[in-house]
């Protein structure tokens, strides 16, 4: 074994990660010592200059509230906010901009569906189906609503590779859940769920589908029309946009039939003390002043992503993942958790000699930013019999030297903790 061997030269299929990197101020050379190997992209992605500038331009140049003013900068803000909605709609393949509700992030999107879609149609004895892959944000909102009425949450299992077992899913769909809530990509393992198939199976059983897409959109193009799902939840910050902004795609006829999520300004048609009528979607679900700057920054992130060859980027990420997987697999006492045939650049692992938090601390000293913990997926950790893992997660701007730093750090862990 050659622990410190450099990566084999990776085939760069028309993708220049170094050029992409140059657009991110945090990766400017000399910023960190040791150099930052940012492998915590599943937690949040870094921001390109174009996103930061779009937010800055808004605050400095034409800042105003939305949907309220008639003065010129208010009109410009309105236009920018609605243009961002259009961009997100186009990006996700939604037929109409009013199928996109701006929210704080995927978590709020799922809570909105729990409250306004699920709750009114849920009764005692009902159940909601999730998968074992889910992040807590795609478990707990359903549990909260279920507890209110005496319903329950059930889970469809995954196999030892971390893949959803479709035969088991079919059986559970036949039991008549009121909703299937499933992730597109596992945040903890990187498994990609065959969503079009899953949606088809659910719809054949008459079960609506809400998808947690937070981990999918940074890696590949998503087309909600093609997938056929009923709701799709995303976060801006994971796809190179600002924090505090995200989007819920919802099929128009579903959104139109749903009661409001929160009450307040903007979401009404008319208010009296006797009776309030609500605005149509998406405004109905956007009470109060929204995160205007976030939405504009999110729109800029979508524009930026649209200019990237995402298919080439996916090949690049896959090469980094394959290299890291091969080199970490060769480390004695290291076990990779999550070996799905189809996965994005997420590498979760445990080491015999050291707890994930100690691994994370040693890697941090090498400049390698990873996540150590249960990744807000405790049921999944339990499924694999580990309390936690160390997770390295890649994005399109990662380079082979990031993998080198990760491998070097893992060998340092063995130096310190190995016997």
């Amino acid at each position: 074994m050659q622990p410190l061997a450099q990566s084999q030269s990776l085939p760069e299929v028309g993708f220049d990660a170094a050029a992409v990197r140059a657009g991110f101020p945090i990766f400017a050379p000399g910023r960190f010592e040791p150099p930052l190997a940012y492998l915590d992209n599943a937690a949040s992605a870094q921001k390109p200059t174009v996103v930061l500038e779009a937010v800055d331009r808004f605050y400095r140049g034409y800042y105003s509230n939305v949907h309220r003013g008639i003065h010129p900068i208010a009109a410009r803000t309105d236009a920018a906010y609605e243009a961002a909605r259009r961009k997100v709609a186009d990006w996700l393949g939604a037929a109409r901009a009013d199928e996109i509700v701006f929210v704080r992030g995927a978590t709020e999107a799922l809570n909105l569906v729990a409250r306004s879609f699920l709750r009114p149609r849920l009764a005692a004895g009902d159940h909601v189906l999730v998968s074992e892959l889910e992040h807590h944000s795609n478990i707990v909102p359903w549990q909260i609503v279920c507890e209110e009425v005496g319903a329950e949450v059930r889970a469809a299992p995954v196999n030892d590779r971390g893949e959803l077992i479709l035969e088991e899913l079919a059986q559970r769909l036949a039991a008549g859940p009121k909703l299937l809530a499933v992730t597109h990509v596992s945040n903890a393992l990187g498994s990609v769920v065959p969503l079009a198939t899953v949606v088809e199976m659910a719809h054949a059983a008459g079960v609506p589908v809400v998808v947690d897409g937070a981990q999918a959109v940074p890696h590949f193009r998503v087309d909600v029309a093609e997938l056929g799902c009923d709701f799709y939840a995303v976060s801006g910050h994971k796809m190179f946009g600002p924090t505090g902004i995200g989007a819920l795609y919802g099929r128009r006829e579903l959104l139109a039939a749903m009661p409001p999520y929160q009450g307040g300004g903007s979401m009404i048609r008319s208010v009296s003390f006797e009776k309030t009528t609500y605005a149509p979607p998406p405004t109905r679900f956007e009470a109060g002043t929204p995160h205007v700057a976030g939405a504009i920054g999110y729109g800029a992130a979508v524009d930026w992503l649209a200019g990237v060859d995402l298919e080439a980027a996916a090949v690049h990420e896959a090469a980094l993942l394959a290299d890291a997987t091969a080199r970490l697999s060769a480390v004695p006492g290291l076990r990779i958790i999550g070996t799905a045939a189809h996965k994005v650049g997420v590498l979760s692992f445990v080491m015999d000699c050291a707890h994930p938090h100690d691994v994370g601390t040693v890697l941090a000293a090498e400049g390698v930013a990873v996540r150590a913990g249960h990744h807000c997926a405790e049921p999944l950790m339990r499924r694999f019999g580990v309390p936690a893992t160390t997770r390295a997660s890649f994005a399109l701007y990662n380079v082979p030297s990031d993998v080198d730093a990760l491998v070097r750090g893992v060998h340092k862990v063995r130096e310190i903790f190995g016997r």
Partner: protein
Amino acid sequence: MSDLRELYQEVILDHSRQPRNFGAAAEANRGARGDNPLCGDQLRVSLRVRGGMVEDVAFEGSGCAISMASASLMTQAVKGHTVAEAEELFERFHRLLTEEEPGELGDLGKLEVFSGVREFPIRVKCATLAWHTLHAALARGDDGEVEVSTE
């Protein structure tokens, strides 16, 4: 790297690999469970306290090297001492971990190996989980079992 060696001193590695007083205290009359929900560390401390004296103390659970070693060294440090002495030791230990200039801390014995944790603020909770759990068990009184959390 020098900071890492300061953090993971040999005594800490030794106690994390072979924790002392691991299990349950015989005829225990105090106990508490401690959780660090952010990282999933969980442990349980049990004690036999008679006449204000910690006659026996043990812990069980799982966690990182820092939390396991801290729990192990804690049991050695407080066994055979009075409850008041144990609480006072916790106070001094906490200052060692968290204060830039902790001043005169007196003799902390082997617990001084944790001084390196000060350079890793996010790991302070790992080192204090066992102590918070001990504190909860002592505060609870006889035949009680309580739960504490770092959050």
